[in-house]
């Protein structure tokens, strides 16, 4: 059953065409990965899905919701779509727990007790039960990112977006976040991930979309894309990637 | 409340007000210069000095920064009585207080210059004093520009407090105008006009200083 449908999306900044007729679909429970060189439009694509960025043209549907309709309720939409950022963006003045409860209380209108309970659940799920009273500055990068994931998950979104969730982490911390993500994938969370973490891509991705210059050059399951890419550009890019991360 | 008669009255006396504005500007300049002359060494002493000298400087700074300028002026005029002239007294009062602030601006700026700059200067054989003079100070001066600009407008506006010792600056002259018999209805007009003059003064000097600091800025800035 199709959850997300991206249809022919265009987006320019000034003269620069950042997205150029991008289309793809995801079913509920899918884990899709966007890969592509820097500046190819991956982040922009994610941001269009929760309308942090507005598309110029084309349509995005989430279930029955017409995301790109001018009158769409963006705040409601964003509850359906969780987002995890490259540099975490935890609320610096709130503890781990409060980071998670803020949305529950202020957006979903839960009372404190209920919100705390649900937040604690989600922190436990990402392995941070112990750290719930720590402030972001007191957490390692990997721990911060896991709080970021818990914060997004707690809203119980239909779709989770991850924008290079591990690329700001020291190499030794990448593992913890990847394992949390793999976990989520196994439990059926629908995820759209920008990542070049080959370990994750190979073990968890259903489909990989290769973007270049704002276009989807090629899509398919990871084995297919990695072993018999149709385009030279894809092969070249993926070859670079795989040599970089030899594990 | 605003009456044409009063406007005419104020505009007829515009030259009277403007000569007050000249006093205001003069007082601002002399005070800032005195502030610079005293404040810069004081800031340097707070950074590089030690012992009694440093303690004295910082104590004087606390007293000057912790006391209202009107009290400082009255003490200078009526207690210490440094001069017969209200202008000189106001200059010393505003100047010393400004020195206390400028010393902090310079202190901050001096301290914000990276220690590596001094080390580099020493490593090519410069003396400590040479390093301060040729490397640290020139950079600190540029960095203190925004602070100095702020100080400029504060002094400019606080010259109005020389009103308390009878100096015929802009505000006093405005006061003179509407305290003439039969002119008290012109209070609002008078104050609107002198406020406008102050505003023009602060605004244009600020833009001027902006331009100056851009002109002297080190290309691409140091704001790394």
């Amino acid at each position, binding site marked *: 059953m199709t959850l997300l449908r991206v249809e022919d999306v265009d987006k320019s900044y000034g003269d620069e065409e950042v997205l150029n007729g991008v289309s793809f679909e995801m079913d509920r429970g899918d884990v899709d990965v966007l890969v592509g060189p820097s500046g190819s439009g991956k982040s922009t694509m994610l941001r269009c899905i929760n309308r942090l960025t507005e598309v110029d043209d084309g349509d995005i549907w989430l279930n029955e919701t017409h995301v790109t309709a001018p009158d769409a309720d963006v705040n409601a939409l964003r509850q359906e779509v969780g987002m995890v950022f490259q540099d975490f963006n935890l609320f610096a003045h709130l503890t781990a727990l409060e980071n998670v409860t803020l949305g529950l209380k202020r957006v979903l209108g839960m009372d404190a007790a209920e919100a705390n309970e649900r937040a604690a659940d989600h922190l436990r799920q990402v392995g941070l039960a112990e750290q719930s009273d720590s402030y972001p500055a007191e957490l390692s990068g990997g721990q911060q990112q896991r709080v970021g994931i818990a914060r997004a998950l707690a809203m119980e979104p239909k779709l989770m977006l991850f924008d290079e969730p591990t690329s700001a982490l020291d190499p030794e911390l990448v593992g913890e976040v990847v394992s949390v993500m793999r976990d989520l994938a196994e439990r059926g969370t629908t995820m759209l991930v920008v990542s070049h973490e080959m370990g994750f891509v190979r073990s968890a991705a259903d489909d990989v979309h290769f973007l270049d210059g704002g276009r989807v050059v090629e899509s398919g399951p990871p084995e297919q894309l990695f072993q018999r890419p149709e385009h030279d550009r894809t092969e070249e890019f993926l070859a670079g990637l795989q040599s970089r991360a030899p594990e | 409340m605003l009456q044409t008669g009063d406007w005419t009255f104020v505009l007829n006396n515009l030259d009277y007000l403007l000569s007050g504005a000249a006093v205001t500007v003069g007082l601002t300049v002399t005070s800032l210069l005195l502030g610079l002359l005293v404040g810069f060494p004081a800031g340097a002493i707070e950074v590089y000095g030690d012992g009694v000298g440093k303690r004295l400087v910082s104590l004087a700074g606390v007293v000057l920064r912790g006391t209202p300028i009107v009290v400082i002026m009255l003490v200078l005029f009526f207690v210490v*009585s440094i001069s017969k002239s209200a202008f000189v007294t106001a200059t010393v009062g505003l100047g010393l207080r400004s020195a206390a602030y400028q010393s902090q601006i310079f202190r901050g700026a001096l301290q914000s210059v990276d220690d590596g700059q001094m080390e580099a200067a020493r490593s090519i054989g410069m003396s400590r004093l040479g390093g301060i003079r040729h490397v640290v100070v020139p950079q600190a001066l540029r960095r203190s520009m925004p602070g100095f600009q702020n100080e400029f407008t504060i002094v400019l506006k606080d010259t109005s407090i020389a009103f308390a010792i009878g100096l015929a600056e802009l505000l006093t002259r405005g006061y003179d105008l509407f305290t003439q018999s039969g002119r008290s209805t012109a209070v609002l007009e008078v104050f609107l006009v002198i406020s406008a003059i102050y505003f023009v003064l602060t605004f244009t000097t600020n833009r001027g200083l902006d331009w100056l600091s851009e002109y002297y800025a080190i290309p691409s800035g140091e704001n790394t």
Partner: protein
Amino acid sequence: MGDGGSGNGDGGGGNGSAGTEQAPSITAGTAPGFPPFEMKEGGELVGFDIDLFEAVVSETEYRFDGWSEFEFDSLIPALTNNNIDAIAAGMTINEKRDQTIDFTDPYYSSDQAIVVREDGDFSPGSLSDLADRPVGAQKGTTGEGVVQDELVGDEISENQYNAYDNYVLAIQDLQNGNVDAVVIDVPVAETFAKNRPVEIAFVYETGEKFGFGVRTDDDELTSALNSGLSAVRESGRYEELTQKWFGE
């Protein structure tokens, strides 16, 4: 600052206490805003005190070096600190002041007027009628003395006394309704009554006299001014001036 009366800037002029030079120069201080004694007209300092003092000095050996303007209550410290050499500001001779400075012979006598709004809502006949009413006066004046000594604490609370730097502002605030009465010297009150919607409710007799203020150690100047004052009275100049400033 070259304009008119405000001669603060001319620095190094005469230092009155030097004394030994020939024809030493003197600076006088006043507090404009006290019509008709001293006020500003078109930026010029004018008034009875101004004319009289200049006339008196011209009868002495002293050279007159111009006026410095102050708030009224700053005049005495300005004098004792040598910022000025004499005060001509409708200053009442009283004991307290006399302990700090010297006065010349009196040159004018006055009482205090209680000034109210013309609308007639409130027309007191004696000080006790002012009970619990906001009252104004100028800082450091005899009027303030009356308010402080006779009213504050008994008839009105400290907060009901509004002190102003200047009579004009006191009268303005009376017109604005922030005070119900202003205590002020009679001749001044008469001037205001003429050109403002205020009137004199009653006069409180203090029998006070105005004198020029001089430093206590400046006896030479005191006696010079005293003889100058008699000369001005004798020459008929004094009459002319009262006619000019208080006459119809």
